[in-house]
């Protein structure tokens, strides 16, 4: 930036033909100008550094998300098909009035979310409370519960499909020991979603547990000490101190669990493919099948937009809250 202003100065010095007054006047004007330019360049500097990230992010994430919204107002058959017919909210109306699998998907997403929030979070909190005490082998237990989270959804799906195998899978084998009829874990439409959910819980409880543990570590010791002085027992301390003080952690775990539950795809795709008889479809998978198998690109886009709106309705307030929190 310094170079720039030097150049301006030298060009001025060479300019000796003009009268002194004008030159002075000019000098002042140019100085203001160059200062302004300097300021502009300084305020542009962050953009130079952000340019690559901004470019890629706009091309891959932000731009396509807006284009999908645009596409959701059209009827197209095929991703690269030429013909596009504007039908306004037609796709949305079609989804809510005529597409029973979409309704199932929406319902399944809600069931999945509620179960995650109710079951996974409770269990994760319980584990975190147990593992927050100091005892021998604590780190090993943490590692054991967290480790499924590092596996890919596909691997988890493969393992659990094997455990659920109708004839020689572990669960039915155990049932047969007790002379119980084999259960169609993944073939019974009423049960399949919950079977997949169990596999997913096995994978995800550990990550919520780690967040709870991080939250527990931020609680200072003083409240416990004064509670002890007041003669509170452990359960009272848990109920009146620990659980209320984890308020912020609940919001974080709640939000991350909700984001995942709405976007769940891989594990359903790999374990059931949405079946049997579409009973385990979720928005993410139904969008995939509508778009890439049935070529209903407009319908698929509308499903993604609905998914996006639901997620954003939680994400935007959540991120603003986080922002506020980090500046206090």
């Amino acid at each position, binding site marked *: 930036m310094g170079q720039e202003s030097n150049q301006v100065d030298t060009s001025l010095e060479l300019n000796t033909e003009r009268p002194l007054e004008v030159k002075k006047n000019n000098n002042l004007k140019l100085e203001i100008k160059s200062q302004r330019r300097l300021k502009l360049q300084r305020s542009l500097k962050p953009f130079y550094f952000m340019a690559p*990230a901004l470019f890629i992010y706009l091309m891959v994430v932000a731009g396509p998300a807006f284009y999908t919204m645009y596409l959701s107002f059209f009827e197209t058959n095929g991703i690269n098909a030429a013909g596009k017919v504007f039908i306004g909210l037609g796709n949305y109306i079609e989804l809510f009035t005529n597409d029973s699998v979409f309704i199932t998907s929406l319902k399944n997403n809600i069931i999945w979310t509620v179960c995650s929030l109710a079951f996974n979070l409770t269990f994760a909190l319980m584990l975190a409370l147990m593992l927050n005490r100091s005892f021998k082998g604590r780190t090993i237990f943490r590692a054991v519960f967290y480790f499924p989270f590092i596996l890919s959804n596909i691997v988890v799906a493969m393992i659990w499909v094997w*455990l659920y195998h109708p004839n020689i899978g572990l669960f039915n084998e155990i049932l047969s020991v007790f002379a119980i009829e084999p259960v169609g874990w993944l073939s019974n439409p009423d049960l399949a979603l919950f079977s997949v959910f169990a596999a997913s819980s096995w994978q995800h409880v550990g990550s919520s547990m780690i967040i709870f543990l991080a939250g527990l570590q931020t609680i200072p010791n003083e409240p416990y000490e004064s509670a002890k002085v007041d003669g509170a027992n452990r359960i009272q301390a848990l109920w009146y101190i620990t659980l209320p003080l984890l308020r912020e952690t609940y919001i974080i775990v709640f939000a991350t669990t909700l984001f995942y539950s709405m976007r769940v*795809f891989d594990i359903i795709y790999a374990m059931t493919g949405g079946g049997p008889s579409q009973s385990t479809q979720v928005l993410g998978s139904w969008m995939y099948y509508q778009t890439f198998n049935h070529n209903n690109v407009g319908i698929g886009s509308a499903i993604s937009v609905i998914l996006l709106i639901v997620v954003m309705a939680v994400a935007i307030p959540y991120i603003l809250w986080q922002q506020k929190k980090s500046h206090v």
Partner: protein
Amino acid sequence: MKKQPARVLFYIFIITFGLVWLIPVFFLTITALKSNGDLFSNPLYALPSKYHFENFIEAFNEGNMIVYMRNSAFISIIKVPLGILVAALAAFGLTRLSFKWEKPFYIFFILGMTIPFQACLVPLVIMLTKANLMNTYVGLIFIYIGFGIPFAMLILTGFFKGIPRELDDAARIDGCSDLGLFFRIILPVAKPAIATLIIMDFLATWNEFLLAQIFISSDNLKTVTTGIMSFTGEYSTDYPLMMSGVLLSVLPVLLVYIIFQKHFVKGLGGAVKG
């Protein structure tokens, strides 16, 4: 003394949970080591009557697992450093150059973390088809970097903000340019955050499925996750071989996890603190 029974109960409780949690992995391992005949003639929970380590070699060579794992390794080696560099530059511009619109831009980037891949798929397919980049690593890596930016920005801006300003001032007095400041001061100081990010990013890349499924179609270009899907389809009756393949695909991830365990907790902690 009085607490002893409670303590024993606690141990019984937590050890039971721990063992239950390990059951799937235990069965994965013993299935992978059995022969197909052994599997069908004996109960599933019986230990293998003979250990067949050659299953792994078979999965590796005939099941193409070696190709899939090499592909995923290649993609990760390119994607992870490149993605982190791009995000680090942006985080630097955002936090250390007294940027006026720091907050809105930060939120704009971070919001991307919550956008479902599905919301971008169709336009990306159109774009990559037009650019002739379908079924290439250039296209896939470009998309991976794009979706990786939000999380990397979250971790890096958080860390960069904590670096004292005095470091910048001292460097500038010594005549450091912006780029010099970035490469010689900020990046080295941010090493712990970058280490965490490298590990998390590697895992995310190694485990990604949907994008690889859509954008890569040739079998010899497939990644571990998409490869294992076609692998298990191919050997759908040979469970031991299938499970050996699954176990093989997990090994690199497991190795990284065991070596860098501390970074995981830190990484998640960082994400929590925002």
